[in-house]
C-alpha cells in the first residue's frame, strides 16, 4: 500500500478517530451503546453509509457545482441511509427496531457529512474509499469499547443473540449470556451505566484514557529526543576531550 493510501486508511483509526479525537457523531455513540450488539450493528451500518457516500461524492466531485455541494452531499447520504434502512428492516428486523430513529439520523451525522466535505470532495476514489473504511472501523471500535464498558458495568453481563437473532438461533432460540459482574448469588452491576448519564460518564473515562495514552506517547517522544541530544552532546564532548589529550 502506498504511503498516501496508508495514511488515508490509518488516520481515521486512531490519530483522527471521528469519535474519540474529533468528538463527532456523539449522538449515536451515546444512544446505541447500551448493548455491544446494537453498537456493533450501528458501527457496521454507519461504515456502509460512510464508504458508499465517500466513493460517490469522490466520483462526482468534478460534476457537483460548488454552490450546491452540501445539498448534493445530503441527497447522496440520505439515499444511502434509506437503502440501508430498507435492507436492515428486511433482513435484520431486530437490529432495525433496536436502532430505531438513530438509523434515520445518520442522514445528518456530522462524521459522514464531514468526511464527504473535507476528504472525498478533494481526493480520488480509492483514497476516499480507504478513508471511509478507516473512519468506519475507527468509529465502530470506539462505540464498541463504550458499549462493552456500559453493558458490563450496567447489566453485569454480556448478552449476544437479542439483536442478531441468528446468534440466538444457534443456541436454540435463547441468547448467549456471559455473566461477569452479575450471576447466581452475586450482583456488582451499577444500573446507572445503562442510563444516558452512564453513557456520558463512560465516554468521559474513555476520552481521558485516550488522552493519557496520547500524552504519554508525546512525552516519551520528547524524553527520547532530549536523551538523544544529551547523548550526542556527551559523545561530542568525549571526542573533543580525546582530541585535546592527543594534542
Amino acid at each position, binding site marked *: 500500500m502506498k504511503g498516501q493510501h496508508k495514511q488515508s486508511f490509518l488516520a481515521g483509526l486512531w490519530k483522527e478517530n471521528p469519535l474519540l479525537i474529533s468528538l463527532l457523531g456523539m449522538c449515536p455513540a451515546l444512544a446505541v451503546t447500551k448493548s455491544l450488539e446494537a453498537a456493533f450493528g450501528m458501527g457496521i451500518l454507519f461504515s456502509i453509509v460512510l464508504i458508499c457516500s465517500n466513493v460517490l461524492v469522490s466520483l462526482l466531485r468534478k*460534476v457537483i457545482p460548488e454552490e450546491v455541494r452540501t445539498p448534493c452531499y445530503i441527497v447522496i447520504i440520505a439515499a444511502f441511509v434509506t437503502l440501508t434502512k*430498507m435492507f436492515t428492516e428486511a433482513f435484520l428486523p431486530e437490529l432495525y*427496531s433496536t436502532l430505531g430513529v438513530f438509523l434515520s439520523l445518520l442522514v445528518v451525522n456530522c462524521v459522514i457529512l464531514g468526511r464527504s466535505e473535507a476528504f472525498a470532495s478533494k481526493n480520488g476514489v480509492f483514497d476516499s474509499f480507504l478513508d471511509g473504511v478507516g473512519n468506519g472501523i475507527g468509529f465502530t471500535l470506539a462505540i464498541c469499547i463504550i458499549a462493552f464498558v456500559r453493558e458490563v458495568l450496567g447489566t453485569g453481563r454480556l448478552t449476544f443473540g437479542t439483536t442478531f437473532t441468528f446468534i440466538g438461533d444457534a443456541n436454540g432460540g435463547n441468547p448467549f449470556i456471559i455473566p461477569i459482574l452479575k450471576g447466581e448469588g452475586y450482583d456488582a452491576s451499577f444500573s446507572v451505566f445503562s442510563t444516558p448519564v452512564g453513557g456520558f460518564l463512560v465516554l468521559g473515562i474513555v476520552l481521558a484514557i485516550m488522552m493519557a495514552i496520547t500524552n504519554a506517547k508525546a512525552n516519551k517522544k520528547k524524553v527520547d529526543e532530549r536523551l538523544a541530544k544529551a547523548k550526542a552532546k556527551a559523545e561530542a564532548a568525549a571526542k573533543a576531550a580525546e582530541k585535546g589529550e592527543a594534542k
Partner: protein
Amino acid sequence: MKIEWKKSFKIAAILCAIAGVSAVLVSLANVVTEPIIATNKATKEKNGLQKVFGSDATYGEKKELSDTKYLLAYYPVTSSLGESRVYSTSGNNAYGTVSLLVGITSGYSLYNLVVMENTESYATTLNENYIVTLINSDKKDEALNEVKCGATYGAKLIRDMVNAAKDHYKEAKA
C-alpha cells in the same frame, strides 16, 4: 442584478439528476424489500397473537378497520373464555409510536396485551413502570387507569388505545 440563467439551469439540472437517480435506487430497493418486510411483519403479528390468549385459542381471520383513531384491525378469538377479540392498535404522540395487540374478553375487560412496537423516548420507563405492572395485575382494568408512571404520556396513549378497543367491541355487540 444579472441572473446567470445558464449556470442556474446547470446547477438545477445536476441537483435534479442526483435526486432522480437516488429516487430510482430507493424505488428499486423498495420493490425488493417490501414483500420481505410485509412477511416479517405478518410473522411477528402471528407470533404476537399467540401470546395474547395463548396458543390453545383459535384465531379467526383478520378484519381490517378504518375510520378509527387507534384501531387497525381485529381478530375474532375462540378460547376457554368464550368469544373474545384481539385488536391490532397503533398510536403516536410527541414521544414516539406504540403498537399493541390488545385482547378483550366478551365482558369487555382487558385480558392481555402484547407490545409490537414501542419507539417512545421513555420506552424503558413505560415498559417497566406501566406495561409490565399492567400485564401482571389481577385487576387489569383498574391498573389501566394508573397512568402516573414516569412516562405518563405514553401510559395515557396505551390507556386510550385499550379503551378504544373496548368501546369498539361494545358497539359491535350492541
